[in-house]
C-alpha cells in the first residue's frame, strides 16, 4: 500500500495555480501602492497642504488632546451601551405590537404605528431639548435633573422607532409557510413567534441593526447640547485653546476604532448562526 502521490500533471496544475495566485497578489499590491503614492503626491503638492497638515494632522497636538478626548468618549460609550439595551427591548416590543393579528389588538397596532411615525420624523435635537430642558423646567419633585438621563431618554425614544421598523421588516420577511408549518406542528402563536419567527427575523436584520447601533454611537454626542462633555465636545474645547483642529481628528479616529471591531464581530456572530447574506447558501 504505497502512499498516494498526485500525478505529474496534477502537480503542474497546482504549481500553475499557485503561480497565478502569487502574480495576482503582486499586481494588487503594486496597484494599491501606486494609487496611494499618486494620491499622496497629489495632495502633498497642493500649496495649502502644509497649513492643512498643521491644522488637522499635528501628531504632537493630537497626542496632547488624547486623554481629554478619550475621557469624553467614555461618556459616549456609557450612554451608548445603556441606551442600546433599552432600545432593543422597546424596539422589539413595538415591532411585535405592530405585527399582532386579530381585531382585538387594533389599538396596540395603531399605537405602535403612530409612535414610529412621530418619533421617526421628529429631529433628534428637538426631542433632546424637549426632554433635557423642558422636563426639568417643570420643576417636578422626584424627577431627575441630570442632563445625561434626559438626553439618554431622548435617544431611546427616537432610536426605538428606527429599530422597531428594522425588526418589523425582519418579522415580515419570514415566509408564511414557516408560520403555517409551526402552527400545524401544534405550536401556539406565542411559541411560533418565539421559536420560529423571531430567531430568523433577528438574524436577517443584524447588519441594519448594527447600522443603527453605530449611528447611535455618534448621535450619543448630541446630548452635549445639554451641557455634558462627550468626545466631540471635548475636542471642541481643546480646539478653542489654539484654533487647531487635530483634536477633532483624534475623536474621529477613536470612533472609527470602536466601530470596525464591532462590525467584524456582528458579521462573525451572524455567520455562526447560519446567516450567509442574501444568497442563503455557499453556492
Amino acid at each position, binding site marked *: 500500500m504505497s502512499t498516494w502521490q498526485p500525478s505529474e500533471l496534477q502537480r503542474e496544475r497546482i504549481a500553475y495555480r499557485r503561480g497565478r495566485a502569487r502574480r495576482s497578489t503582486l499586481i494588487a499590491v503594486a496597484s494599491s501602492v501606486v494609487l496611494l503614492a*499618486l494620491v499622496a503626491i497629489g495632495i502633498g503638492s497642493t500649496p495649502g497642504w502644509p497649513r492643512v497638515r498643521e491644522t488637522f494632522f499635528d501628531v504632537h497636538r493630537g497626542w496632547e488632546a488624547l486623554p481629554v478626548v478619550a475621557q469624553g468618549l467614555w461618556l459616549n460609550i456609557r450612554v451608548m451601551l445603556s441606551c442600546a439595551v433599552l432600545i432593543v427591548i422597546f424596539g422589539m416590543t413595538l415591532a411585535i405590537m405592530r405585527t399582532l393579528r386579530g381585531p382585538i389588538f387594533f389599538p396596540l397596532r395603531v399605537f405602535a404605528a403612530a409612535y414610529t411615525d412621530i418619533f421617526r420624523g421628529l429631529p433628534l435635537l428637538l426631542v433632546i431639548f424637549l426632554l433635557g430642558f423642558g422636563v426639568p423646567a417643570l420643576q417636578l419633585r422626584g424627577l431627575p435633573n441630570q442632563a445625561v438621563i434626559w438626553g439618554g431618554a431622548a435617544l431611546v425614544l427616537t432610536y426605538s422607532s428606527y429599530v422597531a421598523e428594522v425588526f418589523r421588516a425582519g418579522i415580515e420577511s419570514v415566509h408564511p409557510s414557516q408560520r403555517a408549518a409551526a402552527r400545524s406542528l401544534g405550536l401556539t402563536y406565542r411559541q411560533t413567534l418565539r421559536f420560529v419567527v423571531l430567531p430568523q427575523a433577528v438574524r436577517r436584520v443584524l447588519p441594519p441593526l448594527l447600522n443603527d447601533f453605530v449611528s447611535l454611537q455618534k448621535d450619543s454626542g448630541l446630548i452635549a447640547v445639554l451641557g455634558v462633555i462627550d468626545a466631540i465636545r471635548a475636542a471642541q474645547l481643546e480646539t478653542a485653546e489654539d484654533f487647531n483642529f487635530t483634536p477633532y481628528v483624534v475623536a474621529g479616529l477613536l470612533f472609527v476604532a470602536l466601530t470596525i471591531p464591532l462590525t467584524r464581530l456582528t458579521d462573525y456572530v451572524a455567520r455562526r448562526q447560519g446567516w450567509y447574506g442574501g444568497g442563503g447558501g455557499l453556492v
Partner: protein
Amino acid sequence: MRTRAVVGLAVLAVVGLGACAPEDNSSSGSSTPSGADACAKDKLAVKTAGALTVGTDKPAYEPWFSNNDPSNGKGYESAVTYAVAKKLGFEQAEVKWKTVQFNTAFAPGPKTFDLDVNQVSISEDRRKAVDFSSGYYDVRQTVITTAGSKIANAKSVAELVDAKLGAQVGTTSYTALRDQVKPKQTPAVFDTNDLAVQALKNKQIDGIVVDLPTAFYMTAAQLDNGKIVGQLPSTGTTEQFGFVLEKGSKLTGCVTQAVDALKSDGTLANLQKQYLTQSGAPELS
C-alpha cells in the same frame, strides 16, 4: 487595453487634483505699516473694493450688539467697529456685515471677511492660526447665579469648588472656570450663553462663568432673580478682546493702528461708559 484605461484614469485623477489646487498667494503680512498713508483707504487690501467686510456671529448678543442687528451702530462692538472703519476711511454705508459662525472665523483657508468681531480673546496659542488686532476691551471673568442658590453668598473662589458651574464652549470663560475655580464637578459646557441661562433657570447648574458685561446683561435682562456672585481674581496678564483677521493679513497693522488711536483719544473709554456697565460687581478673593 484595460491597463491603459486604468493608468489613464489614475493620471487624470492626479492632474485633476493639481488642476483644482488654488494658486498660492504667499502673503507675509503683519508688518507694521510705515506712515499713515500706508493705511490710506485706497491702499487697503480689502476683499471687496471700496467696502469693509466685517464678520460676526448670529445671534449677536447684548450688550455687544443691539437687537441682533450689527449694522445699527448700537452696542459696544458695533460702535467700535464703525469707529475703526471711520479711522480707515470707510463711511457707515461702506461697512458690510456678514454672518460668520464663531468656529468658522478661525478655520484654516481663505476668509470671507476683512475682520471679524465676536468677543474673541487674544491668546498666543491662537495667534498661530489667525492674526489679531490690538485689544479693544479688557475682559474680566465673572460668576453669576440666581438668588437663593448655594453660591449666592460666596465671597471667595474656594467657596465655588463644590458647585456645578457652566460656561459657553470655546470661550476663555470656560478656561478660567477650569483653571481658576478648579471645580470638583465636571463643568457643564453649552453651545450658547442662552442655553446656559436656561440650565441655570432649571437649577441644572448652580452658576455660569461669563465676561463682566454679559454678566450684567444676563442678571438684568435674562434672569428673574439673577445675582452677580463676583469677578474672578485677575491672573497677572490682562485678557483682551481683539479683531480677528486672516493669518498674515495685510490689514492687521492698520486695524491695530486704528484701535490704538481710539484707545489713546478716549473713544473706547467713552463707548464703554455708554454701553457697558463697569461697576457693581464685587471681587472674589
